[in-house]
């Protein structure tokens, strides 16, 4: 085994990434003549680092697999920015495959992104008219572009020592503290999300407690019923015994 393959045990390093697409519709004024007539949108699909450091040095290349009908559907980007700009008319699933530096000795990571050209339909979800962040649905920016960006983290479990060096060159996990219009993913959003989840958790735990109480009540009533029944049966037995005694007396 080569020396650089030695792994750092019991450690995992996570690096945030965002991936997604932006899309802006053509209109009569800004449509270039080179674009086919049926294409309605110009879109960009990308993989980026949302942190302050903007460091994607651990990535060797990113391969985007576009829809088969697009010319040259397999696009490989060897250096940042990892993005592709194209024109088109339809939404489809983009397969994104991230290859890491050879020092990592890792297999590539593959995932999907649903290309969004059309805004999220607000009639579907009624959470005060706001589009849920991070759901992958299209968000409309003030300038009319549609955006669908997802946050995720790459987890390097027990990286090789060489790769560990690359990963720890700079602190790679520092997010912006506040939400901005360009980048919503920040410590602030994390806190908000945590707050929401904790609230929901409290609610669920309350419901669990009340449900358990109900079970106890049900069991209690059940016991009472059984006791009643037992008493009734005892009475009946008593009666029968008495009757038997009476009969015995008669026969004697």
């Amino acid at each position: 085994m080569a020396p650089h393959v030695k792994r750092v045990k019991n450690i995992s390093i996570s690096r945030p990434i965002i991936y997604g697409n932006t899309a802006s519709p053509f209109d009569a004024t800004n449509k270039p003549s080179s674009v086919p007539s049926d294409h309605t949108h110009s879109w960009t699909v990308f993989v980026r680092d949302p942190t302050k450091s903007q460091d994607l040095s651990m990535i060797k290349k990113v391969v985007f697999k576009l829809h088969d009908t697009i010319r040259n559907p397999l696009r490989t980007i060897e250096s940042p920015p990892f993005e592709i700009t194209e024109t088109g008319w339809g939404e489809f699933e983009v397969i994104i495959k991230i290859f890491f530096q050879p020092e990592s000795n890792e297999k590539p990571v593959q995932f999907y992104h649903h290309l969004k050209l059309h805004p999220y339909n607000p009639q579907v979800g009624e959470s005060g008219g706001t589009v849920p962040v991070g759901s992958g649905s299209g968000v409309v920016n003030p300038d009319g572009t549609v955006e669908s960006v997802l946050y995720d983290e790459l987890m390097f479990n027990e990286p090789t020592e060489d790769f560990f060096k690359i990963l720890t060159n700079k602190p790679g996990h520092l997010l912006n503290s506040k939400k901005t219009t360009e980048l919503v993913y920040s410590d602030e959003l994390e806190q908000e999300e945590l707050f929401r989840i904790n609230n929901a958790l409290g609610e669920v735990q309350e419901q669990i407690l009340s449900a358990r109480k109900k079970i106890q009540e049900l069991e209690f009533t059940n016991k009472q019923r059984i006791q009643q029944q037992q008493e009734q049966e005892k009475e009946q037995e008593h009666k029968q015994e008495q009757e038997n005694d009476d009969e015995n007396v008669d026969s004697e």
Partner: protein
Amino acid sequence: MSSHDILDVFNVQRSEPPKKKKKIEPKKQLSGINRELYQLLGENTPALHLKPTSKFRKRLDTNSKAAAWRWVKFKNNSRDDGLQLSHWMKGIGPSPEKYQFEQYNQKLKLPDPDDVTYERLIKENDEENDWTCEETKYLFKMCKLYDLRWIIINDRYNYQGPARSLEDLKQRFYSVCQKILIDENKILKEAGILDENKTKLIDALNFDKSKEIDRKKYLERLLGRSPAEIAEEESLVIEARRFEQAAQKMLAERAALLHLLDSPASTANISQYSNSQGLAQLYNSLMFTDKSKKRKQEQDTAVTSSAGMATDSKKLNKKQQQQQPQQSQQQPEIISPQQTTPQPENPVAQLLSKKLTAQEEAAYGLSYHAERLQPGVHLRSSKIASYKPSVQTKVNSTLNELGIPNRPAMISKKIVERFDILTDAITTLLETKKQIDSIETEQNLVWNSQ
């Protein structure tokens, strides 16, 4: 071997052996192509008897005499204009006196209220006092005219007066009929003749207008259902049936189980096992005794056979050996990482040897874990706890109710940890709810069946 042979063996003398007369079936004389076909069959007669069926039209039988048809005049007595018509009749013989279709022209025998009976019977205590004698008579006329075809009567009903619905007409007609029939019955009774059918008829004439209107409303509603409603109804019916079946099955199983529990003729009261808690208790106690028995047996065998003990101890040693290296790997790395990395100048070791604060760790996205994890790279979102599809959909719907998206907005470490706790809590909640339901249904079943 036949009886004939047996008798031969025993030398039993017999008078004339009865000769079986072979019935010679007259062979059908086949003709034409059929004969040729049967000859082709030869000796091998088919197992199945095939009857030749002619597929051709029968040839016109020109030899027999033609049937006689006569042109006969007839009168239809159900007509009142005495029209004379003629028709062809087959065969010779006297022409029938009656026209054969006369019998089907039946007229209903309806009571006919005249002024006198109306005054006498109906006028006195008439609940429907907006009816006049004239209109009642008109109604009966219409009924007779259209043979009680109510839809047509209602359609043709044209009387100067208040508007009448179909149910109004029916109610009036039946109530008047009933009164008249009761009166007739009284007279018959006085005369000493009792007609069973008539009393039955009187009972049958009770017409409930409101019920009839309700019935029609129901029918209309039934007809006006949308396909979606029909589908829903059907699915509900199916579900209800399934519930019934499940309940029956459960009762049967319970009965079988109780029977089984009862088989060693226990004197104890069985009713404490009639609910799920009781059963669970019993099950646990039985399991416990079973286990303790097994353990005793194992101990016994270990004591008696030294060979067995040797293998056991070997196994134990092996286990310990396996555990030791694991511990040696884990301990130094967590407590003092310097020991594992051979070169102290290694930057990895340097970084790890520094005591990092929690903030610094977060900045590098570093985390330590004691448990064994598969080395490699993956997305954090792929490690979010997932459940069986059936459970997952329920969890998702509960999340929606709580206003939490199914995929957290940010897949960061803290959020995923909390999110997993949340989904876990939701599953326990769903479990407890299910338990409540089962206890309730069980109780209902048990107490209803007793």
